[in-house]
């Protein structure tokens, strides 16, 4: 866990010019605005997002920049509904911060290594910008040069993008997803807190697995019926709901098309599709079939015999 004081230590080491403001804990930009006046710098709104493949993104923007999630998702090459707010567990697991505290500085944590950081281009025009330094009762203002220096020192590139680009269509034959290159190459699975300890126990205590009482041994089975985790929820729906099933197939197909479709001749592309997607889709289809059969089977066990 990275104590926010480390952020200031880094500022001092790198001789980054900044100002620090302490205030009561704030959860929203509006609240923050009460304590840090706009003369100090431009306030930012910070979103922590995840896509369907468990890849995470911090989007940090000016408060008046419109961030269209659908457009962003398409520009990342994830289809229209490919991105959503990350669950709370991921905030603490990956960014080591609490609610209301998402900030570009969170990438200083090792756990955030695979989180992609996207910054609003408009920050560059500001004298200073305001962020939380990992704690929501402190704010810090600095200019983008300082931010870049900070990021560089921890081995990160500063990625500034024009968030308000909204071409029509956003993504198409002549317009590949321009932000696809910022999609992290690694996904991260963030299990829900209660079962996480349990699954670690199982994996690491295998030597005494047999001696463990049923109570202590993990409940991976819980995941199946437990509605909490976003990952497992969507897995269940895909196999039960025809629309979700089709959406999943189309998402994967279009993602492949967008990533492989540049300049390929159509026959070669069709071959690639078959090669790369057949096994995965068959697997999906079998699970769909199994789910339907099981529901029918269960219904059969519950059905009343016909009246004579």
């Amino acid at each position, binding site marked *: 866990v990275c104590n926010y004081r480390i952020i200031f230590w880094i500022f001092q080491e790198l001789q980054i010019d900044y100002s620090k403001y302490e205030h009561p804990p704030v959860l929203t930009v509006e609240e923050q605005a009460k304590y840090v006046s706009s003369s100090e710098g431009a306030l930012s709104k910070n979103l922590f997002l995840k896509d369907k493949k468990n890849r995470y993104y911090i989007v940090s923007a000016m408060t008046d920049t419109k961030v269209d999630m659908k457009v962003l998702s398409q520009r990342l090459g994830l289809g229209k509904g490919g991105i959503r707010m990350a669950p709370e567990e991921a905030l603490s697991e990956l960014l080591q911060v609490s609610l209301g505290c998402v900030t570009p500085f969170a990438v200083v944590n090792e756990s955030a290594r695979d989180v992609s950081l996207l910054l609003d281009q408009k920050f560059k025009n500001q004298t200073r910008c305001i962020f939380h330094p990992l704690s929501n009762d402190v704010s810090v203002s600095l200019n983008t040069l300082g931010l870049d220096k900070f990021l560089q020192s921890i081995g990160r590139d500063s990625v500034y993008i024009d968030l308000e680009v909204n071409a029509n269509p956003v993504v198409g034959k002549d317009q590949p997803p321009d932000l696809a290159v910022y999609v992290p190459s690694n996904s991260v699975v963030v299990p829900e807190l209660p079962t996480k300890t349990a699954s670690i126990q199982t994996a690491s205590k295998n030597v005494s697995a047999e001696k463990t009482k049923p109570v202590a041994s993990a409940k991976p*089975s819980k995941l199946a019926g437990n509605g909490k985790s976003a990952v497992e929820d969507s897995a269940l729906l895909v196999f039960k709901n025809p629309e979700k099933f089709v959406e999943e197939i189309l998402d994967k197909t279009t993602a492949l098309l967008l990533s492989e479709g540049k300049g390929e001749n159509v026959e070669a592309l069709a071959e690639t599709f078959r090669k790369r997607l057949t096994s995965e889709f*068959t697997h999906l289809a079998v699970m769909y079939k*199994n789910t339907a059969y099981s529901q029918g089977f269960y219904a059969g*066990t519950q059905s009343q015999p016909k009246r004579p």
Partner: protein
Amino acid sequence: MDVDKKDSIASDSSDQVVNPWEVSAKDGGKIDYDKLIDQFGCQRLDASLIDRVQRLTSRQPHVFLRRGVFFAHRDFNEVLDAYERGDKFYLYTGRGPSSEALHLGHLIPFMFTKYLQEAFKVPLVIQLTDDEKCMWKNLSVEESQRLARENAKDIIACGFDVTKTFIFSDFDYVGGAFYKNMVKVAKCVTLNKAMGIFGFSGEDHIGKLSFPPVQACLSVPAVPSFPSSFPHLFPGKDKLRCLIPCAIDQDPYFRMTRDVAPRLGYSKPALIESSFFPALQAKNGKMSASDPNSAIYVTDTAKEIKNKINRYAFSGGQDSIEKHREIGANLEVDIPVKYLSFFLDDDTELEHIKKEYGEGRMLTGEVKKRLTEVLTEMVERHRMARAAVTDEMVDAFMAVRPLPSMFE
């Protein structure tokens, strides 16, 4: 007609040891699979056989066949002959549910069996030997039954078709026709013969062998190879052939079955056998559930997988970058390349990696990174599928019911 060159396995300490309870290489080196084939008396799965599979199934042979993971067999040729004539077969595989966490080595036979089911369009019975584990591992009956159901979920997540698959646990299913076959087999197997096949000596295991149900238990793996054990699935099809994918250390069990089958008027089951999935650190003969760092588990997070591979995967790369660029990696001992040969489906990419790494242009870090990607994707896909397996689905797979579309 195969000839069992040796019924017993020499437990010579300077030799390699391979039996259902112990696997170790000679002098801590590699397992010599050619010697094993020779010793056991089974046959190599050669390229012509793989081509035949491709022709019969009209699809690319599974990566495990192409890479020689499944490398030996007994009577697979005969099964294919019969298949060409229109005489189908069924598949049988199993698991002893002794631990809740499955690792990649456990998944391999199931992944391959799933391919066989899809490619040949044949039914499958999966046996969970909860009784055997209850006895030999001293678990309570309830615990072993619970583990069996949990394991069933991971097995189902591999993608088996419920309209063609029957999963059963011994505690649930033994009885009726199955039990009759058990007793028939037990009558055929003398104590001496069993001891000979499994390499027991007079003193050391007599306690286990003299326990009456154990002798019957020894026959348990044999019984599912006989279609009459499943009257709800194969009524009147007593001559239906059975093909058993398994790891080669299970060969002794089935040698006994093949010996007994003709005496009971049944077809000998055919076997298709795999080599061992090496442990991450490569020291041991195979991945072991008792050392968590020797294996990648299906419950491992992406981070854990990355760490395990980076920290524990035995590398064939050289000590220094200069030396590596000069000599290249030792592909013989390199674990990441070995793992990729199991799980990286793209032949071209694997060849490229082997060439670049073996000639020193690619570094260990890159190979490990690719492996991490491949395994993470696999484990994630498994986890998604696993999450969709409900208790109702397990009940459906385990219900004693006919499978009318099993050959479609």
